[in-house]
């Protein structure tokens, strides 16, 4: 099936998602300026993916009032009775509901901004960001808002999600296991071990969005370690793969809700890591983390922020 055939009929929800995506970028940019640095390009590339997931794809339990981040509950262990994960931000669990897992927790700031945009975290939630004793960590862990498992050691997210998907099948649960992945994390062997196992056991309750923004810590993915042609590699491992424009919210939504065919589904999203913040292009190919070189650069980003804000108010 061609992706275009799955496109929904015209409606107003795409505008709503696009607005949320702009809000995600704006919040992350604002935060980057305030902090003197941040994972900004990740917001630029993945804003539409996150907004579409939370507004159109994920079937999650409701969160009636936006949650205020609680203090860090301590690490899990036998003595810690007050321990919690960040799963509450994704609403109550049920056998029909989906579960969402952020695999590259370097994208945590993007997830937090999303949770605010969709009304699951309080609008001042980012005030807790990277504060000692808090849970809104720069590289989130399972206690961070919207998170539930230990990811960020790249390659482990998909394997844990695979175990959860298998468990849900064994328990007869119908909800999906939805993963957000980045392109760089398709390099480790464990990622391919996991793809191998989910196709072997036909875990078609797995739906993975991969943000292919083309950059990783050291620079362009193709120069650090080529992963292409990723769709062919994944297909040959037995997955169902779509490759789309990762900023096209209608396609992101339609493919996320497409019927499964017995194979796990990967939606490869080609994205622009400077989308909405053109000044980021000056940093190519070092896109992984923005740390301002000085006041002059910071000023440019302040101007970009003003543009985003005005664009949003105008639209």
């Amino acid at each position: 099936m061609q992706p275009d055939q799955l496109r929904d009929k015209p409606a107003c929800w795409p505008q709503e998602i696009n607005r949320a995506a702009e809000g995600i970028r704006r919040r992350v940019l604002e935060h980057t300026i305030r902090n003197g640095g941040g994972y900004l390009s990740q917001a630029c590339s993945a804003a539409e993916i996150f907004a579409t997931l939370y507004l159109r794809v994920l079937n999650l339990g409701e969160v009636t009032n936006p949650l205020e981040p609680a203090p860090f509950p301590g690490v899990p262990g036998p003595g810690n009775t007050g321990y919690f994960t960040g799963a509450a931000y994704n609403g109550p669990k049920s056998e029909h509901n989906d579960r969402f897992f952020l695999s590259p927790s370097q994208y945590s700031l993007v997830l937090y901004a999303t949770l605010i945009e969709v009304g699951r975290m309080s609008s001042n939630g980012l005030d807790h960001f990277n504060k000692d004793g808090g849970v809104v960590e720069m590289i989130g862990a399972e206690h961070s808002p919207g998170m539930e498992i230990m990811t960020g050691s790249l390659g482990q997210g998909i394997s844990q999600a695979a175990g959860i998907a298998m468990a849900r099948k064994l328990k007869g649960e119908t909800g999906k296991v939805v993963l957000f992945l980045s392109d760089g994390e398709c390099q480790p062997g464990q990622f391919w071990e996991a793809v191998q196992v989910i196709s072997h056991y036909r875990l078609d309750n797995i739906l993975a969005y991969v943000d292919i923004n083309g950059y990783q810590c050291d620079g362009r993915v193709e120069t650090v370690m080529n992963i292409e042609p990723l769709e062919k590699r994944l297909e040959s491992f037995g997955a169902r793969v779509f490759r789309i424009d990762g900023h096209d919210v209608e396609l992101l939504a339609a493919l996320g809700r497409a019927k499964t065919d017995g194979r796990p589904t990967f939606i490869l999203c080609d994205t622009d890591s400077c989308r909405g913040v053109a000044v980021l292009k000056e940093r190519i190919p070092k896109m992984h983390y923005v740390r301002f070189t000085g006041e002059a650069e910071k000023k440019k980003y302040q101007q970009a922020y003003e543009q985003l804000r005005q664009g949003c108010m105008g639209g």
Partner: protein
Amino acid sequence: MEILTRVHARNLVEWAADKPNVIVLSADLTSSTEIDLFRDRYPERFFSMGIAEQNMLSFAGGLAREGFIPLVHTFAVFIYRRAYDQIAMSVAYPNLPVKMVGFLPGIMTPGGATHQAIEDISVMRSLPNMTIFECGDASDVESVVDAAYAVDGPVYIRMLRGEIPRLFAEPMQPGKARVISTGDDLVLLTSGICTEEAMRATSELKKYGLSITHMHISTLKPFNDDSVLDAITNSRYGVITMENHSIIGGLGTVIAEKMAEAGLGKKLSRIGLQDTFVHGASKQHLQREYGLDAMGLIREVERTVDTKFSISEDQISEAFVAAVHSQAKPEAL
């Protein structure tokens, strides 16, 4: 001495019958880790994960988060050496009830350095939330699954396979040393396969009037057994530890730490692999080469008490080792 075969294989099938949340994972070593009978009996609860241990450990973490108790089976080396980060982050940090059953501890394989787990206790012991058990006989093998199941968190087991002696009549009790003999001259702490060897040696040493408190240690972490420290306190010559593992980070280190913390000024001798890798050869050959056999222990005892005993290898091999009943049945000691 009673010798049993494929103890884990048969025990696991029976044990898991009323535990539907127990799932067994295999990394292409199904017969080699004695889970073939489980696979045949409960195919819906058995998953082949291929030679892909990193995924297997994280996958097990995922299963455990959903209420299952995964029993990961492979050779010990492939658990902690190949998937350490996965154990740390997908299993140990979240304190998930994944039970890692590691076979071929130490010198138990002629497979050589690639297959010999000589520093697994050292590595796993430093992981927070981890519990570590080691089996030394058939009753340990039969009861360690219960002990592991009762722990609400990750457990690493040094497991035995194939032909295994029955040294003890009762099941192991987590956190409690098994007392094999009592005496004031010397404390002897042994674990795993070393216990049987030590029993051969002590049965001969007794003839020379040496009184030894011999304890079998099956819980390596957490280690809070005061009876062990009490025995060391009361010993004339101090304590000897004997383990099928590097002397760095295993039983000898556990005891050294405990003694230092308690301020016990007694001599400690550690029998084990003396900070060396091992090579492929038979168990008997390696035991002798690295001093992990009864004769190795006797030589260490001779040094400790500064006396020569004329005990021959023939005497040792003929030494009869009978199953020991716990102190709960003192008449049988």
